[in-house]
């Protein structure tokens, strides 16, 4: 339970907020979005960026700088969480191994199943990332799947070391390559994250210029960060 008895001031506030929201929502006509900017983007996105997925083109071409800021926020959150939990990659392996030995070991079925699922999840993540400009999906979604793929074996075999040094290198290189692709666009076409490599024909795997490369960079960065976060939280029990 949240609390043993209701909090009357909080309930009163919620009631007032509900009245306010009802008053606001009554004037919003559902289904009649004006979408002046959205209409314009829908008209030119496929022609300008070559991506069939308009959301991906907004995320990585029209608003690419914003996505870079988002990656910075995620990086700060992951670094902060690692710092607070006190897991430096110097002593991550030995200490964690010594502490998690008190847990009962995972069963045979879970171990073999995790082994069986690891390549499957890896392929699924790579597919979702690399088809991000054609179908729903992209770097963030595929990165989450990749993080899960690397966390499942850790759950099955708590003693197996997760190579955090490699994860940090992958994360750093992916972030740097995102910035480098952006700067290459600045040098080539005159603005940050300008589409490079030609747009190609809409709907093919090798199209949309640099968007698949950016998706790959985001996927690797997000995947390594989220996997690092989960492994940092998967520590020993506090007593």
């Amino acid at each position, binding site marked *: 339970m949240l609390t043993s008895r209701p909090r009357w001031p909080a309930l009163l506030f919620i009631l007032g907020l509900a009245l306010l929201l009802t008053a606001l929502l009554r004037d919003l006509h559902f289904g009649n979005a004006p979408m002046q900017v959205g209409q314009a983007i829908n008209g030119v996105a496929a022609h300008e960026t070559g991506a069939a997925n308009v959301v991906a083109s907004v995320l990585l071409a029209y608003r690419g700088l914003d996505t870079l800021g988002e990656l910075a926020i995620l990086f700060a959150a992951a670094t902060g969480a690692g710092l607070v939990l006190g897991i430096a990659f110097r002593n991550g392996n030995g200490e964690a191994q010594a502490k998690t030995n008190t847990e009962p070991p995972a069963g045979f079925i*879970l171990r073999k199943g995790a082994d069986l699922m690891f390549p499957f999840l890896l392929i699924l993540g790579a597919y979702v990332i690399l088809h991000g400009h054609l179908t729903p999906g992209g770097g963030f979604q595929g990165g989450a799947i990749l993080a899960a793929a690397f966390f499942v074996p850790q759950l099955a075999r708590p003693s197996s070391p997760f190579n955090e040094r490699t994860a940090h290198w992958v994360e750093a290189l992916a972030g740097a390559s995102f910035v480098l692709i952006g700067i290459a666009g600045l040098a080539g076409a005159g603005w940050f994250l300008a589409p490079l490599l030609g747009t190609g024909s809409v709907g093919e795997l090798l199209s949309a210029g640099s968007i698949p490369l950016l998706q790959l960079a985001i996927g690797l960065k997000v995947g390594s960060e989220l996997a690092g976060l989960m492994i940092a939280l998967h520590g020993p029990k506090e007593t």
Partner: protein
Amino acid sequence: MTWIADVLLLIGAAFLFLGALGLWRMPDVYTRLQAGTKAVTLGSVAMLIGVGIERPDWWPKLLLITLFILLTSPLGSSTVARAARVIGQRPWRAGDAKETP
């Protein structure tokens, strides 16, 4: 052809409903896992096959989803059952009180 798909979808829906009902009615964690795994696996696989007959161009993806369900569903349930056994959960006997969900 389309009535076969309808029948399969109905079978799938019925088994999913039975699985949910079993999850609610069964007395302890092991019996609940029985209902939640077997009935739901059969229900979802029947549903996926029904969808595949309805939309023949979706076959490859549906096959992969079926494979994934057949792989993960028993894995998850066996892991939960093992964890319940490790923490000392006793199987339910006739006459015991039903556990609160």
